[in-house]
């Protein structure tokens, strides 16, 4: 009685055609996944840097508000053009505090003296607009920052002198 031989098909495993089809499908799926991942990563990076810039804008507005409240008077002057200003605050004890846009790095700086040892940039986002409007009652600030990925962030604030 002859032994039953297994078919050639069962011994063969995968054919070249099957392998090619699997590899093509796998490549397509992997390319889609990588594309999705890169797109999502870019979205996350953009959102993250914009959130940081939003926090920085809020920080600048809050710091200016606190300083204006503690001040007695203020004087605004243009630094380079009508979009970039400098704010000089004078306190009741005649001490001064400054907020200004620096053309060398496009950042907003603050300190007791312009360019002094205790002065420097407040934030890392560049300011496209730092407009200051002073009256004898308070200071209005209009700020527009640009995040690292290019998203604009605007914030405005108004504070009155308390001293």
């Amino acid at each position: 009685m002859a032994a039953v031989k297994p078919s050639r098909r069962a011994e063969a495993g995968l054919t070249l055609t099957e392998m090619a089809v699997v590899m093509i499908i796998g490549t397509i799926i992997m390319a889609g996944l990588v594309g999705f991942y890169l797109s999502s990563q870019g979205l996350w990076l953009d959102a993250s840097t914009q959130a940081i810039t939003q926090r920085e804008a809020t920080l600048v507005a809050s710091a200016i508000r606190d300083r204006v409240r503690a001040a007695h008077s203020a004087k605004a002057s243009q630094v380079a053009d009508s979009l970039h200003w400098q704010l000089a605050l004078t306190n009741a004890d005649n001490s001064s505090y400054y907020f200004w846009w620096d053309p060398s790095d496009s950042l907003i700086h603050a300190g007791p003296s312009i360019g002094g040892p205790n002065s420097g940039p407040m934030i890392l986002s560049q300011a496209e607009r730092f407009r200051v409007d002073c009256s004898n009652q308070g200071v209005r600030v209009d700020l527009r920052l640009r995040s690292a990925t290019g998203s604009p962030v605007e914030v405005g604030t108004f504070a009155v002198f308390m001293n």
Partner: protein
Amino acid sequence: MEALTGATISVIAVMGLAYSFGVGRGLVNRYEVARAALGEAQSELEALQLVPRTDPTMAIGYVSPATPFIYEGATLGTSSWRVLPYDDPNLPGPVNLKRVIVTVQWTRNAQTDSLSLERFWQP
């Protein structure tokens, strides 16, 4: 069969991840306007400090007309304030403080949001 199952799970996982990034981005955009609205409300409260206490617009029960809330050149909503009576139990009299509430409402991407800031004033 196993390969198909694995591929399906991978696709679902990556789609879920991408969706969560999109939702996160949407929230950042939403709170971008919220921060601007907070600045608007704070500025409004600050400006109201300059109004004399005896001014009719500071009388209890006053509701201000709505003013436009503008962000990046577009009018997204309105801002208004109202003055309510407040009874502080530790102070004498039934109405011993004014409660000034500034409310900013806005709509962006078919989503309506609002925020309110309040401060107490002596009458």
